[in-house]
C-alpha cells in the first residue's frame, strides 16, 4: 500500500470525512530537506468532516497529527492540512 493510501485509510476510518483529498506534492520538494528519491514525503490533505464541528483549527490539526503520528515520525516529512466542517466547505 502506498503512503497516500495509508493516509486515506487512517483518516477515512477515524474521521468519516464527507470529502477527503490526499495530494502528493513531493515532486515540488525534490532534493530539499526531508525528500527521498522514492518520493511520498510531502502531502497536502483536505479533510471535510462533521467531527470538526465545535473545534478550533489547532484542535483539528492536533487530532489529524495524532492519527498520523507514526507516519509523520518516520516516513513523511511534511503535511499541509486544511480541515473544514461540511458547512465551512460550502461557504
Amino acid at each position: 500500500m502506498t503512503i497516500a493510501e495509508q493516509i486515506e485509510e487512517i483518516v477515512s476510518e477515524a474521521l468519516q470525512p464527507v470529502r477527503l483529498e490526499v495530494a502528493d506534492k513531493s515532486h515540488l520538494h525534490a532534493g530539499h530537506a526531508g525528500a527521498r528519491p522514492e518520493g511520498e514525503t510531502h502531502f497536502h490533505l483536505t479533510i471535510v468532516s462533521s467531527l470538526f464541528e465545535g473545534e478550533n483549527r489547532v484542535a483539528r490539526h492536533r487530532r489529524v497529527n495524532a492519527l498520523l503520528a507514526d507516519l509523520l515520525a518516520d516516513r513523511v516529512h511534511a503535511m499541509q492540512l486544511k480541515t473544514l466542517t461540511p458547512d465551512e466547505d460550502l461557504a
Partner: protein
Amino acid sequence: MSEAVADRIRGEVESNDVVLFMKGTPVFPQCGFSNTVVQVLTYLGVQFKGVNVLEDEEIRHGIKEFSDWPTIPQLYVKGEFVGGCDIIREMFESGELREYFGSKDIALETA
C-alpha cells in the same frame, strides 16, 4: 523535555507579546513554512521576536512537546499558541488574523 528547557520556552513566550519559533531568522528564514509566517507578520506590520530553533537543539525538540504540536514554525501571542504555517496562512487570508491581533491589543503598522 527537561524542566530547564520548558522554563526557557516559557520565558520567551511570557516576555514577548508575539514570538515565532522558526527555522532561521526573520531576516533569513531557512525553511519555506517559516518564511511564509514571517511574510504574513511583516505584511501586517506586527513586531515579533523570532527564535531560531536551528541554533538550539533542545528548544527545537522541546517546543514540539511544549505545545503538543509536531512541526515548526509555531506562533505564540501573549502566551497563547495560535498555530503553525497552515493555520496562520488561512487566518491571514480570511482576515481573522488581523482581527485576532486586534483582540489581543497587538499593534499593526499597516492601515
